[in-house]
């Protein structure tokens, strides 16, 4: 198309937009084409030529403002094979929330696969995503620019070469192997990060805490972020440092007022600490706030004892969720020994609701105990098992699962019942916990019991079993 045609077409278009005859504005060559046609036809024929010219003679021009995103990094694990993508998607669809979908991805990662990016991707704020997804977290957080960086060892000098998720994971690795080096890096560089990023980085000091961390953590009492200050206070408490500021002391004193000290036993007169009965909603709310703000060490000090003695004397079974709130405080600020002691006591009375709060602080053996207790406890504990994020994926074999009381009750709710009076429970926990062969066996067993073979509740179990079939 030449310039005259281009200009003629533009004039005709403008004329037609407002309305009127555009024949006189047409390029000379086009006028010739339509000259032989009767006048009423000419305008339509010019329209046809113009339309065809727009269709074939013009190409859309790339805008100057086009922004390309960096290439999506390949992850360290292979993507799920095509054949496993449909059961993976079905399992994702059946998950009720983002946490459930994350669990499906964790199961896949535990078996050596990552999701196809069109099926699932963690969002930039999904810090709990399996570490293998760190490059995608950084890609999500990155609006544009290059992302393919050759990552050296994380040092103060290379700090800015790392994107946030990759940096956090590298720092976590260093903290596990060389706690002092990780702390030194934080001292040098964390102050330059935004509050949320600073909080996530300083939280890494939860691993291998020691007295050597005290000066740095104490320096954070002046941090501009309240959340960082609170985290530092909790970490200090975990390594035996009581609060020094007046506000924290006042809170601990107020919380102590919600707890009654007494003696029990006819001979040994043991000291116990009983949560007082609350009389109003306001009291409940205030006590919950105080448990959230206070550290165990400060509370124990109000009663003149150490953490472990206080836990030993804590009277379990208090009303209004006292044990759960207490366990949350212990999980956040208690020392390792105190956490272990409380976990032991909670396990002994099978208070898994409170124990769930301690799970992030427990070792693998204690977590397994939690799982086994839940399985032995029956169907009422299924929601707790579904809520436990810290449990390792795909570790329980068939006997451990199908022999449990919980499973037997799930099965009993299916077998011999019709669709209308059958209750099918959320079986995601079984899908997540089972080994592949156990998952396969459970699917077989439940379908034999009467559950439809494609029942949606079997989705994660089926995906788990399919992962196993792939490897075998």
């Amino acid at each position: 198309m030449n310039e005259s045609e281009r200009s003629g077409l533009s004039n005709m278009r403008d004329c037609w937009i407002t309305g009127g005859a555009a024949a006189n504005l047409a390029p000379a060559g086009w006028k010739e084409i339509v000259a032989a046609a009767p006048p009423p036809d000419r305008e339509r024929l010019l329209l046809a030529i113009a339309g065809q010219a727009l269709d074939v003679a013009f190409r859309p021009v790339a805008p100057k403002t086009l922004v390309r995103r960096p290439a999506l990094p390949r992850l360290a694990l292979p993507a799920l094979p095509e054949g496993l993508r449909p059961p993976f998607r079905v399992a994702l669809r059946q998950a009720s929330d983002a946490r459930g979908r994350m669990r499906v991805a964790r199961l896949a990662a535990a078996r050596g696969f990552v999701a196809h990016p069109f099926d699932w991707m963690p969002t930039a704020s999904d810090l709990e995503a399996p570490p293998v997804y760190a490059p995608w977290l950084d890609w999500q957080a990155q609006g544009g620019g290059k992302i393919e960086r050759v990552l050296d060892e994380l040092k103060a000098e290379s700090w800015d070469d790392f994107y946030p998720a990759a940096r956090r994971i590298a720092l976590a690795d260093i903290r596990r192997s060389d706690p002092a080096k990780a702390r030194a890096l934080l001292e040098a560089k964390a102050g330059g990060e935004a509050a949320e990023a600073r909080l996530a980085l300083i939280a890494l000091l939860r691993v291998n805490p020691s007295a050597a961390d005290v000066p740095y953590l104490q320096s954070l009492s002046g941090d501009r972020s309240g959340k960082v200050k609170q985290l530092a206070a909790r970490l200090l408490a975990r390594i035996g440092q009581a609060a020094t500021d007046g506000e924290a002391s006042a809170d601990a004193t107020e919380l102590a007022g919600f707890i009654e000290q007494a003696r029990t036993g006819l001979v040994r007169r043991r000291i116990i600490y009983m949560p007082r009965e609350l009389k109003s909603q306001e009291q409940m709310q205030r006590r919950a706030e105080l448990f959230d703000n206070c550290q165990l060490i400060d509370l124990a000090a109000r009663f003149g004892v150490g953490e472990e003695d206080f836990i030993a004397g804590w009277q379990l079974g208090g009303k209004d969720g006292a044990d759960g709130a207490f366990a949350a405080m212990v999980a956040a600020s208690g020392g390792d020994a105190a956490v272990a002691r409380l976990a032991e006591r909670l396990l002994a009375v099978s208070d898994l609701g409170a124990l769930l709060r301690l799970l992030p602080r427990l070792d693998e053996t204690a977590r397994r105990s939690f799982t086994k207790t839940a399985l032995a406890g029956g169907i009422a504990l299924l929601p707790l098992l579904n809520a436990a994020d810290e449990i390792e994926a795909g570790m329980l074999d068939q006997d451990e699962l199908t022999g449990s009381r919980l499973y037997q009750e799930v099965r009993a709710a299916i077998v011999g019942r019709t669709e209308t009076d059958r209750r099918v429970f959320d079986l995601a926990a079984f899908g997540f916990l089972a080994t592949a062969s156990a998952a396969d066996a459970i699917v077989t067993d439940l379908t034999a019991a009467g559950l439809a073979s494609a029942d949606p509740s079997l989705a994660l179990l089926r995906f788990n079993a399919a992962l196993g079939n792939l490897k075998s």
Partner: protein
Amino acid sequence: MAFDLKTIEALAPDQASLSSASKLTKRSNWVRLEMRDAMLWGECQGSGANPYRVVVDAGDQGYTCTCPSRKFPCKHSLALMWISATAPTEFAPSDQIPEWVNDWLGRRRKNGGAPAPTAGSAVKNIGEAEVGEVDGSAEDPAAAERREAAQRKRAEETKASIVVGLEELDQWIADQLRLGLSSFIDASGERCRRIAARLVDAKATALASRLDELPGLLLTLRSEERPEALIRELGKLVLLVRAWRAAPDDPELKRFVSSSETREQILTDATALRITATWEVLGERIETRKDGLVSHATWLMAMGGLEPRFALLQDYYPASAGRRSQAFSAGERFDANLAFYPARQPLRALVVERNNTVALDTSWPAAAPESVSDPLAAHIVRQDAAPWSGATPILLPAGSLARDDRGTLWWQADGDVNNIALPVAGNPPEPVLGIPLEASVGLWDGARFDLLAARSAFGRLDF
């Protein structure tokens, strides 16, 4: 619980359904028959371009089918039950339940028991259905002549009616130019509805539907793009009208103006192009139209050839028939013989014979070399041959997507030297912006590129 013939007889809505089902019990009608536990499913090549997917639960006699029939169960469901009762070995045991069967199972509500026999069960007889139509009496030659004469007369009347309708359309287009496209865009719904109604009266139903869809098409574009889109579309209509007047019996033009051939006409047309190949399902587009019909388009591409060859399986069914599941799975490949509707650039097709799904062991054909410098080269060829055509399927070479400052996505070829980029329709998933596309297939409608599928280092991408 397996089916028996008594149960099927009781479930059938009427004798006609049983008779129709009887004809579909031949194995050759079924592309796939599979089972797992009490679930039976199959794909039946019915009268539509897309196969019907049928699932039956022998446990509680639940069923579903993607056909638009308003009879429940439809003849396809009955036929599947019938095969399970009389030839259960035809069903291949399957380890995996297809996603579309799972979808149905996830959505369905069971009633907990076998459905009650239909009211007319007393007058249905499966034995009679098996006998089939026995009325073999030949038509009286005089009656046949009268019927054919009546048909010819009706065709002439239709043609005359269309001529009148197209005169009105011509005048209507001239009026829009005179009144201004700006005011047309503001009132396109009302104006198009009026002329579409006139065209329906004139029996130019295909053209009427196209005009009915025009306001919706304009709404998908930015306001500054609408006048040019309108000029393109009205220009195409002018060309189509003139072409039809010159050759009213041309099958392609007739299809664009009034109505399409039947499946039987295409299958018996010896001149219809037929291609046997391995076809990959690129994707489906299911849209409800203003005229109350649902347009169900399945796009296929032949594998292994030197240049891309596309096919479109197009069905229409009433929206009142409810939502239909997909007829194919995206990415599925199968060997099939397709018959194409006669056209200057044949695209719409029917499956004549389809074999089982085949492995993904062949790659896509290469994009035309010139598509790097001009990604719309294939569209130009098609427009030159049939300027009234709509969207063109295009296989694009290696490229990637980028976003402009208004949020629109654009596809651009690697190594593009002419600064061409195609605006992309819809909202593809965000990760695609970080995935170099080795090849992409989509539909170019003159304004937007509607991505169907792409190949990448992450495997096949479905949009």
